[in-house]
Structure formats: structure tokens, C-alpha cells
């Protein structure tokens, strides 16, 4: 090959390369110009007509109290228009202005957090403008295309909410399941990650997650699997162990040394003609507890009475009492649905406990179903020990399936003084079921499941509890896509707030579930008919699965 040839080739090569670079530059320029041409232009709206009502937005956060560290509360403006402009502002900081051709308003994350952080305890305002194709005419005869609706306002709470929320996502089935998992959601953003899903252990069941003092450092997680058996995962920091028995509803003692749990013989049933098809009955149940240091499971006569059904344990903030629900067994054959199933109502009771001596006191009644006329379920005590939040429904043990289930609260401090556990129905209840509630670590926030808006699909709501115990209008757990819930087939249940994320990876947890190593424990008794030394009978998934 001659030198000339080589030079020519190099030249050609260079020309080719140059062409390629030019092509890239041109394409980039075109792409950038297109992007600029197509993007939503910001407009200064000087002229508009005022509409004497607030805009219809979904979700509607007006009147709510919102956490200062919550993810942007995106929403959809449900007004027909050709353009939308939103101005979000408060007393301090720069307002956020969003212009959009679409009714979905996506709020930028950083300015949102900045605005909320600067204005803790203040009011957040939201001006909504909608552009109509054929606008009204002004006094000067100009065509006004924009309309401004009344300002929507919400209150920014002074206190943060715990950054992470843990919940279970499952379809609204009754007996079978395919995909389910326990997820953690960073409330400051939209980031959601799997703690453990049943894909890690051949589509078994994962449920009943319980944290000690809102901390991910100590956690229990219930597992049921036809392949790997039933167990409870105990997470202590980075360490994960498998306890060789299934824990039902679980509550950690504030010391983290004891976990009380229920053992339930659940039967799933259905209504032939009610609005909610599904129902659940405990044919038998008792209360038990796990001692972390000695790795033993124990119970006490007051926790496991033969003639009563015990469930839903929760510890008082000082750890001196275990509160739980208890109903009398009024029928003899524990294998059939009793005729008077709708008369089964649970009382709220408590038993004192001495941690150092591992001794239980006598059972005391806190609130009786006879007095309330309703079944008292799911007691939860705020970490500051002031509030006892619980739900009540017409009958039974499973409020999420009862449309009548509402949230109530008792001021324990007042009760201590007066000796009267006076309760109050919360204003935040809807006509649908409210249940699965829990407190934040600072006792200022509650999260709960509600079926409002659909009747079948539970969603998570967040509400602010002020110092006087007033619970303010809740907000639904925000999603990046504000229309997300319109086509979401999952139910969100058992929301629990935690201060930091669960650090153990899903693979780590999955490996522990699959492994044969476990802490072998002997059940002191099984169900209300005692059979010492035997684990609870294996329950078919359809008997135990619940939302």
C-alpha cells in the first residue's frame, strides 16, 4: 500500500469520523430544540377571571395537616382545560410554580422539601389556575383564557413523621395468593423497596411485621410456607434468625427483651349477600410470649384462658402492662360457625407484667364490649404513653373486613387520674372500614388503613395528632403518579412507621427462611385445649391468609 493510499484512507477515515460527529451534534441540537419546543412553557398569568370555589383536585389535601418531611403531594386537577398553572407558597421561601398542559401536577422534590422545612407550623397555600380554550371577556374587551380558583390550604406540622413506612401489599383475595411482600417506603420520596417478598420462598405467606419502639433494629416477621414451614424471623440489627414457630399478632416489650404474640386458629368465611364478601373468625386463640434472651416461649393462665379468645397484644409505653383483646367463647363446638357469630364481641383487657421476675398479674378490664356495644380490637399505645388508639366494629375479630370499623382513642393520662377509660370516636373515620393503625415514634402521627373510596382496597392514610389528642384530616400515602390508586389492585395493610430502614437485604432474609437452621422452641400449649410440648398444627393457607 502506498503512502498516498494510506493518507487518503486516513483522510477518508477522518472525514467519516467527522461526519459522524457532525451528525451527533445535529441530532443533539434537534433533540434539544424539540425538547424546548414541546416542554411546558412557563407563563406569567396577569389576567384571569376568579372562580368563587376551590378547584376540584384529587387527592384533595385541603384542610389536612401534612408532615414537613413528606414526599411531594402530587395531584390531579379535575377540571377540563387546555393548560394548568399551580402556585404553591407559604410565608417563607420561594413559591413553587408549575405550568402543565396535563391536569396531573407533579411537584419538584427539592423546592417542595425546602418550602415545607422553612414553614413548619405554618399554612401551605395552593393557587390553581386553569386555562380554558374559550375564555371570558374582561371589561376592556380582552379575551381572558385563565381562571383562578379559590386558594386551597393545608397546615404544615411542626414535627416530622418517621421517615420509613413498612406495609404489606397483597391482592384482595380470600384464600389463595400469589405475590405478596413486605415493603418499606421512604416517606420523603417515592422510593419503595422490598423487605421480603414471597418470591424468595416459593410463594409462601409473609405477614405480621412488628417493630420494637419504631426501630428497624429489632423486628419480627411472620412466615408461612408449605415448603419451608412456618416460622418467625427475628431481626436484631444485621443479625437474622429464624424462630421455629409462627407468631400471630405480635408486640414488642419496650425493653426489646420480650415479644408477646397471639396464636390464632383462624377460619375464613364469606357472606352470601353483604357488601364485604369476606370475613374471619378465630375459632380459638391465646396469648403467648417469647423471651429473647432465653429463646423460650411461655404463656400464663391469664393470657390463655380456656373459655376466652385472646388476641391483638400491645404493650404499654412503660412495659408494665400488656393490653389485649379478649372475647368469651359462647359456643361449644369449635369447628362450626356459631349461629350467634355476630354476637362475638371482644373486650379490651390488660395484665400487669414484671419484666425482671417474669411474672404476670391479674387480668383487668379496660373497656368492655358490653359497655360499648361493639367489638374492641387492635389496641395501640402511643410511645409517649398518652394515647390508646383502637378500633371498634359491630362484631368479630377482624376490623378490616367490617365496614362498621372505626377508630377511637382513650387519653390514658386522664384515665390514670380518673380511673375511667373514657373513649372518643375520631373525626377522621369514614363510612368504610378503618383499621391497622399505629403511631410514629414521636407520637404525633398515626398511620392507618382505610377502605374509603372503594370498599375493597385498603389504602394507607397519615394523620396528625396534636397535643390535645385531636386527630386532623388525614392524607393518603402519596405516590408519584397521582392517579396511581385509580388502577392499583393491591391492598396496603398493617402500616408501621419506623425511624430508619430495615438493613437486612431481602436475599439475606430469604436465605434464612429457606435454611433449615432455626431456634427451636417448644410451645407451652397449643390453642385453648392444651397439648403441652407440641407446635401448633399446620394450617392450610386458605385458613390463615388474611389481608
Amino acid at each position, binding site marked *: 500500500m502506498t503512502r498516498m493510499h494510506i493518507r487518503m484512507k486516513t483522510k477518508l477515515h477522518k472525514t467519516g469520523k467527522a461526519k459522524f460527529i457532525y451528525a451527533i451534534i445535529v441530532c443533539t441540537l434537534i433533540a434539544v430544540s424539540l425538547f424546548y419546543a414541546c416542554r411546558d412553557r412557563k407563563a406569567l398569568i396577569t389576567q384571569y377571571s376568579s372562580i368563587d370555589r376551590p378547584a376540584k383536585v384529587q387527592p384533595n389535601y385541603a384542610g389536612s395537616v401534612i408532615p414537613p418531611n413528606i414526599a411531594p403531594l402530587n395531584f390531579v386537577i379535575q377540571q377540563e382545560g387546555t393548560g394548568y398553572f399551580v402556585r404553591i407558597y407559604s410565608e417563607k421561601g420561594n413559591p413553587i410554580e408549575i405550568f402543565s398542559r396535563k391536569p396531573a401536577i407533579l411537584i419538584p422534590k427539592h423546592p417542595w422539601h425546602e418550602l415545607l422545612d422553612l414553614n413548619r407550623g405554618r399554612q401551605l397555600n395552593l393557587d390553581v389556575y386553569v386555562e380554558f380554550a374559550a375564555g371570558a371577556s374582561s371589561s376592556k374587551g380582552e379575551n381572558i383564557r385563565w381562571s383562578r380558583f379559590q386558594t386551597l390550604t393545608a397546615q404544615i406540622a411542626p414535627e416530622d413523621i418517621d421517615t420509613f413506612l413498612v406495609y404489606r401489599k397483597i*391482592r*384482595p*383475595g*380470600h*384464600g*389463595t*395468593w*400469589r405475590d405478596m411482600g413486605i415493603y418499606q417506603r421512604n416517606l420523603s420520596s417515592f422510593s419503595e423497596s422490598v423487605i421480603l417478598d414471597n*418470591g*424468595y420462598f*416459593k*410463594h409462601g405467606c409473609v405477614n405480621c411485621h412488628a417493630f420494637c419502639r419504631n426501630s428497624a433494629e429489632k423486628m419480627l416477621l411472620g412466615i408461612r410456607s408449605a*415448603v419451608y414451614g412456618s416460622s418467625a424471623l427475628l431481626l436484631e440489627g444485621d443479625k437474622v434468625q429464624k424462630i421455629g414457630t409462627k407468631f400471630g399478632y405480635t408486640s414488642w416489650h419496650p425493653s426489646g427483651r420480650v415479644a408477646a404474640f397471639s396464636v390464632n386458629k383462624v*377460619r*375464613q*368465611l*364469606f*357472606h*352470601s*349477600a*353483604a*357488601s364485604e*364478601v*369476606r*370475613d374471619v373468625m378465630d375459632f380459638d386463640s391465646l396469648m403467648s410470649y417469647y423471651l429473647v434472651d432465653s429463646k423460650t416461649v411461655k404463656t400464663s393462665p391469664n393470657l390463655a384462658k380456656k373459655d376466652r379468645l385472646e388476641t391483638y397484644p400491645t404493650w404499654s409505653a412503660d412495659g408494665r402492662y400488656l393490653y389485649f383483646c379478649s372475647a368469651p367463647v359462647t359456643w361449644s363446638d369449635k369447628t362450626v*360457625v356459631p349461629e350467634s*357469630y*355476630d354476637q362475638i364481641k371482644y373486650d379490651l383487657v390488660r395484665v400487669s407484667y414484671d419484666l425482671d421476675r417474669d411474672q404476670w398479674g391479674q387480668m383487668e378490664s379496660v373497656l368492655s364490649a358490653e359497655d360499648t356495644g361493639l367489638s374492641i380490637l387492635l389496641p395501640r399505645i402511643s410511645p409517649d404513653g398518652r394515647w390508646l388508639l383502637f378500633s371498634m366494629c359491630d362484631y368479630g375479630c377482624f376490623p378490616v373486613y367490617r365496614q362498621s370499623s372505626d377508630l377511637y382513642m382513650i387519653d390514658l393520662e386522664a384515665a390514670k387520674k380518673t380511673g375511667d377509660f373514657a373513649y372518643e370516636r375520631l373525626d377522621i373515620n369514614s363510612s368504610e372500614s378503618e383499621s391497622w393503625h399505629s403511631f410514629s415514634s414521636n407520637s404525633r402521627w398515626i398511620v392507618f388503613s382505610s377502605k374509603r*373510596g*372503594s*370498599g*375493597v*382496597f385498603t389504602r394507607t392514610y397519615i394523620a396528625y395528632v396534636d397535643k390535645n389528642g385531636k386527630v386532623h384530616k388525614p392524607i393518603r400515602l402519596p405516590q408519584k*403518579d397521582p*392517579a*396511581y*390508586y*385509580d*388502577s*392499583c*389492585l393491591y391492598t396496603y395493610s398493617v402500616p408501621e412507621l419506623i425511624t430508619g430502614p430495615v438493613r437486612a*437485604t*431481602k*436475599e439475606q432474609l*430469604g*436465605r434464612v427462611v429457606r435454611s433449615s437452621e432455626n431456634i427451636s422452641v417448644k410451645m407451652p400449649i397449643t390453642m385453648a385445649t392444651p397439648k403441652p410440648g407440641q407446635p401448633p398444627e399446620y394450617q392450610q393457607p386458605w385458613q390463615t391468609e388474611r389481608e
Partner: protein
Amino acid sequence: MSNSLPKSSGRMSVSQSRSQDIIKQHSSRHLGRLLQSFLFFILFYLYLWLYVDLRLMYHGAGIITNFPVFYKGWTFFLPFLSYPGGPLEYLSAFLSQLFYYSWAGAIVVTVQAWLLSVCIDYLLKAANLLRIRWICFILPFLLLVLYTRYTYYFATTMALLIALIITCLYIKMTLSRTTTLSCLSTFLSLSVILYYLAGGAFLLFAVVCAIYELIFRFRWKTSLFYLLSAAAIPYVVGLLIFRISIIDAFCNSLPFSWKILYYEVRKRQVTFVYLLYVLLPLTLFVFGLLQILWKRLHFVKGRTKKKHRKKLSNLLLKIFSRYRHSPKLKWTVESLLLLAIAGSAVFYSRDENLRTRFKVDYYSYHKMWPELLTSAQHNAEDPFIAHAVNRALYHVGRLGYNMFSWPQHPDYLFLSDNKYKWTYWQIFDVFLDIGVINIAENALAECLEGIGDRPMVLQRLALINMVKGSLGTAKIYLGVLSKTLFHAEWAKHYLELLQTDPGLSTDKYIQHLRSLYLDKDCLTHTLLMEKTLLELLERNSQNRMAFEYLMARYMLNKHLGKFVQNLERLHDFDYRELPTHYEEAALIYVYGTRKPFNLSGYPPSPQKRQQIEDFSRLLSSYGRNKQAASKELSKKFRNTYFYYYKFASIGSNK
């Protein structure tokens, strides 16, 4: 010099013409092969479209539980990018939706089968295994078997296809690259891409490449490296980067994934999928080794063989030689052989009963009653088919006339026996039609979980919630449906209707279902059907289906006292004549109890009276020996209630 020129030019022209002949021969052989493939795949396509009817697989019949769902939009798409094998799952989910139209689904599967055979052909050619190129048709044969058996492995076979395409790409890219390093880099980059696209199917790629490098390129170190990569890449990419479980990191998209093997219904015919996967590596390994051995033996014994061959001149060899030298004959024989094998594969793998199950279920869901009754004749004894037949007979107004022309058992009406307790798919429609909406809803909710959010399930759930007035829930199901490819219009229609007419007063079907809806609640785990049917009639005495099913239930259980008591209800409906089986049952009751004959005002038919007397006479002629009389009675009275009443055992299935 002058002589040499023409000589050499003569030599050149001879060699030129010879090479032209070879090219001609080659191109005609190539054309022949193309034609052969074309014919084969045309027949393949027609078979899938017209016989297998892929829309039945889309429907699933409650048997296919892993048929994927697909929604429009980024929200559905993005999660598929978050794990290895996700992109392939997304593509498979999209392509599977085309099964909705049988012709379109058949195109997808045929193209897939064709590409599989092209890849195998290419790889065999690359390995110089030209004599066994017919193997490329084995993959389509296996696919035929899988589809004939109505098993859904589309995603798994797509993973195989992508792995093979990438393998071809590797071979093509490394043909000109001689250095090991360039081969390794090509392999690694392709591996990562393939692993991300198709998950565990990457293992096949790695194994095939390793075999290829070892046997055909004699590079054992490279081969070993590839095998080690097969273990390392899923671990690094799957487990450490994408953080999926170790089992999924290695098995996702493969036929031995727990997602297939854990479920009985999903692993039907999985052996054929294993064969699909092992065919290529096994072929390359075995025939590659044989090739090496053959070359060595041929080199040593070349002469002796030739001599030996010369001695062999018999008729068989002549025929063989003629066959070898006649391309047309060869083409014809090969084509016939190909079709014969394909035909045999289909013939021996077909399962008419299963096909009937799929067809009947499809017709039942789409309320295609005449088609259902025609198809059901192939497998009428199947409880699920019998159940669908009863529903079809009711809808065509023939339940009281023809139900005993079909196999019957008391369980068939509602599939009520304990053994059907996990049967949800087959029962939701009968409960919806009759008015026990909650049971239908419960069954559908179970299907939603067990089978996935298939449009058929969502459609029914939306409808039920609209009937119940749970509009919030209905809107959620409609919202999901509006993102599907083929049911969006239906959903949008109802979403708009809910805006303009929230009471849905203009929708006749919903109003009709509301008029039947059971309103008496009870908490139970097993519905008492008789009680429920009576409650339905109490709620709406015009609920014709509840009435006919109640009467059918009494007849099937031989509760004729209750049957006769309820004949009065006939006046609530517009029966012009008394249904044949009702008259037969009433006659048995009258003859049995010697009570006065009362057909609730309907005139008795003299023929029926004659028929029961003939039946009784014939039975008496055998000394009332049921067993002895059964053959003759069956001939004459097989389709009557008389025969059922006398011979049906209601304890177990007939």
C-alpha cells in the same frame, strides 16, 4: 506456448463450468430447502391457527395459570427493567397478548419457531455439521407438541430464542477474530447483555459457546473460562447488582425455575421444554465428538474402506446412489418425512378431551351456547364440561327438556362437591347468572390471585361491583382494564357511563342482575344451595334460572316430593308447555306415591304416560333386575329422567 494457451483456457472453462454447476446445484438445493421450510411453516401456522386455536390459550380455561398480563404505559414497563430477564418477560407478555386473535398468535409462534430453526441451522452450519441440518426442525416439532397440549411456555421459549440468536451473533462476530482476547471480550459483552435481557437463558449461551470453543476450535482454556463465566455472571449481575435471589439469578426464564416447577398445572409437558433446551448443546457435543472421531478413523482406514466399498454393489446401493443424485427425489422424500414426523408428533400428543375443555370454557365465558353444546359432545363426561353444558342448556331454554340427554350428577350443577373446593374459575359465571353475586365475587377474587389480573377476571369483577353499587371498587377494576390492549373500550364505556349515569339505570344487563341479587345474608364457608335457591326465588319469583336450577337439583337428587311441591312456581314464568323432564319426574312421583296426577294446570302428555309404562314393563320383563335390563332400557330411554332416576347413583359421579 501457442498450444498451452488454448489448453489452459480449456482447463479453465471446464473448471468454470464445473464450479457453475456446483453453484447451480447449491442454489437449487438452497431453494429446495427454502421451499421445504416455507411449506412446513405454512402448515405449522395453519395448524396453530385453525386447530390449536391460540385464543383458547389466551382464555386459559382456568388451566393455564401463568399467562402474562400486559398493560399500556410506562408504569407497567419500568419494573421489567429492574431485574435480569425482565425485558424478555415484557416482550413475551406483549407478544402473548396477540393470542387474543388466534391468527395473530399463530403468526407470533410460527415466526418464533422459524427463527429457532434458522438459528439451529446456522449454528450447525458453523460447526460444519451439514449432514444433520434436519435437526433444526426438531425444535418446531417440540413446539407443536407443547401447543397441541395447551401448555404455556412462551416466555421460556422466547428466552431460548434470544439465547440462540445471541449465540449465532457470537459465532459470527468471532469467525474473523482469531485472538482469544477478542473472543473473550465479545463473549463477556454479549453475556452481560443476554443475561440482562433473558436472565437464566444466558446459561445455555455460555454452555453452547463453551462446547463450540472446545470441540470445534480446540480452545479448552477459553471453554473453561466460558463455563466459569456461566457461574460468575448471574452471581455478580443478578445477585450483587440487581439483588435478586440466588435461585432466581440462575433459574429465571429457564424451564427449571421454581416458578414453573412449584405448580403442578404449570409444569405440564415440561420435559419437552427441557428437550428444547438441551437439544442444541447435546447435538453439538455428540456430533462434534463423532466428527472428530470420524476424521481420525477415516484418515487411518481411508484406503481399506474404499476398497471395501468398491466390492459392495447391490440393489440397495444403487437405489441409494440414485436417491443421492436425484435432488427432486431427495427433496420429495425429505419433505414427506418431515411432514410425517410433524404429523406423528401432533397425532400422538393431541388430547381431544383437554382441547374440548378449553373450547367449552371459552364458549361458556363468551356465552356462545350452540358452539358450546356442539363441542361438549366430545367429552361430555367431564364434570366441568357437564357443568357448562347445564348452563348452556338453561340459556338456550332446554334445561328442562334435554338435561338428561347429557351425563348428569348432582354435583355438576354448581360443582358443589368438596373435591371442587379449589375450583373458582369454572363457577363464577353460574353464580353471577343466578344472582349469588358474592360467591361469584369471591371466586373471581381468588382467580385474580391465582391466575393473575387477566382481563376476563377484571371485567367480571368490575361488573359485579357495578351491580352491587360499589362504584369506587368498580372504577379501580375499570381503570386497570382501560390499560389493556383489547378490553380498554369496554372499560372506557363503563367509566363514561358511571360519570353520566352513576345508577347505571340505562344498562339493562346490570339492572337485570340487580333484580336477581340475593339480599339475605348468612356467614358460611359452604353455601347451602337449596336454601340459597329458595331465597333467590323469594327475593325475585321471576328468577327463572334459580327456578330451573332448583328443579334440576331436586331431580338430580331424586327429591321428587320437593320437586312436585315447587311445580306451582311454573305459573310465575311463561312456559307454554311443561318441560319434558318435569313431566317425567312428576309421573315417577305419581306412580311411586299413587297420589293424584297434578301438573299444575298443564295437560298431561299421553306419550309420556305410555313411555313410563313401557319403561316399567321392560324392567318387569327382566324380573326388575336393573343390571340385566340396563342395556335395553338404555337403548330406548337413555335420554329420559326415568332412566336417570332408576340407574343414576347420586353418591359418586356417574
